[in-house]
């Protein structure tokens, strides 16, 4: 017979400060969690409008692509030797976006950072759709998209195989792996929540569909046991994976000789940038969601604050990388590098470079102020700036390098064409189309995990906080320290 301790009166004693950051004062019971999160799924006019717009953008981009396939890449803005342009820029941009999701859901999980709990599902979905978007661009940008399957190693009567020394083949492997693993990660995380929805659902058709999706999950203890274990291992796999993916993407550049590309700093630099941009996108997405779905008491300001600190940290890393690049160029005494970097900031491409530097290095410094960190409006504005800045970071890496290479005779400029811009816009349409469909059909906040940080009902009354610093609840036995005065 478990005997329960002297109850702790609400308000009495100081709650654990660290845990205070992530606990949800506004949430009393499991019922409330189910009710409120499931409640977000009801479609609204605004949602339909947004979805419509996204689909229009997507169709526009798709049309542009068809046009380009028929009439040739010449209709894009390429200006040799600038052989890569908006498409590769946007590819790297979207891949980068993806990284925050995995970081939040996997790495922070391993680090037991509790504030991830309420935002990770959203971030994870973002990852999957971002990678889905990014994955299109290598196909869009090649001259003969209909031959793309040649990059996939499969037995064929030509007896020819891909070149496994090519960074593009590494890309194929890294990105397909990344897409598969993050999609799996998202889905298995969803299973218990789908089960919740299944059992709340009244419409038989939807119920059956959800039943299939939930794979007959029933919240039994053995299921949870294996689930937790699997989740741990997936997280353990995703962590090196996410680091490897953007390193591989950075190899696309580092493996070529072009000045400004051929440098060893790229992998860490790219990974940090990716996470930075991803968190930017998370803000762009989560802030409107918590506002319009009225989830401020679940996705609390504390969570945003914590995420903002992460953004600040990555921003500092990225900024440092920028500065080191210039230092390396100077220190190497390699005149190609020096000429290129001079041209980057003070020459032809100064404007792009300064957009990048201000958006990624200067503005984020504002996050040192707690007031701004806790101001969702500012975070939202900043997040837009970060997205812009990170797109231009890739622009600055790709275009100026190619336009100002070894051969002065071949120096050139670059102006995107309407096709580039249409497909860029289309990619946003495509991404938000999927995301919007997601948030109205599946819980955008992880029900089961939120329940973890909600105190369970007890025969006696609940304690104020049963959550420790890690965001995981502490055992509920009298011996547990920190629970009483």
């Amino acid at each position, binding site marked *: 017979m478990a005997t329960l301790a002297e109850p702790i009166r609400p308000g009495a004693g100081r709650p654990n400060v660290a845990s205070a950051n992530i606990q949800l004062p506004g949430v009393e019971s499991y019922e409330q969690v189910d009710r409120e999160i499931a409640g977000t799924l009801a479609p609204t006019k605004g949602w339909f409008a947004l979805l419509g717009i996204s689909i229009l953008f997507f169709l526009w981009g798709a049309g542009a692509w068809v046009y380009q396939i028929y009439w040739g890449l010449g209709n894009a803005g390429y200006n040799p030797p600038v052989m890569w342009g908006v498409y590769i820029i946007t590819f790297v941009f979207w891949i980068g976006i993806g990284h925050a999701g995995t970081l939040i859901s996997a790495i922070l999980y391993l680090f037991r950072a509790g504030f991830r709990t309420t935002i990770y599902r959203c971030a994870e979905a973002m990852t999957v759709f971002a990678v889905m978007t990014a994955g299109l661009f290598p196909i869009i940008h090649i001259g003969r998209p209909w031959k793309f399957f040649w990059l996939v190693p499969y037995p064929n*009567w*030509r*007896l020819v195989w891909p070149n496994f020394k090519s960074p593009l083949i590494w890309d194929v492997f890294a990105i397909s792996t990344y897409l598969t693993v993050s999609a799996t990660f998202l889905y298995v995380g969803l299973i218990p929540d789908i089960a919740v929805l299944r059992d709340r659902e009244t419409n038989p058709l939807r119920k059956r569909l959800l039943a299939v999706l939930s794979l007959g999950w029933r919240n039994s203890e053995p299921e949870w046991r294996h689930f937790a274990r699997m989740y741990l291992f997936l997280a353990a796999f995703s962590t090196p994976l996410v680091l490897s993916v953007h390193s591989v993407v950075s190899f696309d550049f580092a493996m070529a000789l072009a000045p400004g590309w051929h440098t060893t700093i790229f992998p860490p630099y790219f990974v940090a940038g990716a996470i930075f941009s991803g968190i930017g996108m998370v803000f762009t997405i989560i802030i409107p969601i918590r506002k319009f779905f009225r989830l401020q008491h679940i996705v609390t300001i504390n969570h945003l604050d914590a995420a903002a600190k992460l953004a600040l940290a990555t921003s500092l890393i990225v900024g440092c990388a920028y500065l080191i690049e210039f230092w390396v160029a100077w220190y190497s005494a390699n005149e190609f590098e020096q000429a290129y970097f001079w041209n980057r900031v003070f020459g032809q491409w100064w404007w792009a470079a300064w957009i990048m530097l201000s958006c990624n290095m200067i503005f984020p410094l504002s996050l040192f102020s707690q007031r701004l960190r806790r101001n969702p409006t500012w975070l939202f504005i900043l997040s837009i700036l970060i997205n812009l800045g990170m797109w231009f970071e890739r622009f600055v890496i790709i275009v100026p390098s190619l336009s100002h290479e070894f051969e002065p005779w071949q120096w050139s400029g670059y102006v995107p064409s309407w096709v580039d811009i249409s497909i860029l816009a289309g990619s946003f349409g495509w991404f938000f189309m999927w995301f919007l469909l997601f948030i109205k059909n599946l819980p955008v906040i992880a029900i089961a995990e939120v329940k973890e940080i909600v105190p369970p009902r007890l025969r006696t009354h609940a304690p104020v906080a049963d959550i420790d610093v890690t965001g995981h609840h502490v055992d509920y036995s009298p011996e547990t320290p920190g629970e009483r005065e």
Partner: protein
Amino acid sequence: MSRRRSWALASGFFAIAVAALGLSAYSGASSSQGIDVVQPVNFPHPRHVQQLGMNCLYCHFSANRSPDPGLPAVGTCMGCHTIIQGRRPAIQGVADRDTAAINQLLSFAKGTPDQWKPIPWVRVHKLPEYVHFPHMRHVNAGVTCQTCHGPVPEMQRVYQYASLNMGWCVNCHVKGYKLADGLLAAGDTAGARAATNVEPQKARYDCAVCHY
């Protein structure tokens, strides 16, 4: 339990799809192996080669001198067919005969040579334009025509014998051409027996040997 069946079905379909893809990729599914076409003149190879014993090079005169095997000029046909007409009366007990094919030929070769019309033969063996296949190199290396073109002497109507896939070419280049097999294909069993110990003749398999 209906759901169980549907699950099984789904995975089954998936497996089949994958298998099909792999197979089609590996077998030269994109090849036009086996196609045969109706020619403007229904030229019977068996009659000329098997019965009259004409040599391939008599008509395909540049196969040993040029990348291009060459096609018989109308004049070449008319060398014989000015005498051998389509219609032949019955003589010495042999019944009279009227050969459609020869008439087809004659319809192109009416009157004096300057009134003749060229015969629009239809191509059967077609390599993509980005492949360079120098006939003379192969013929001079002793590769019998039948090795690639199959038993043309027996074909009433010529069809594409080999797949002409890249893998098909490369296999021979790498493993080497066995004279005995070639002769056997050409129907020279004696020669084949004699050539059993001839070393297979390899050819370069660098991409730029054929693709440029």
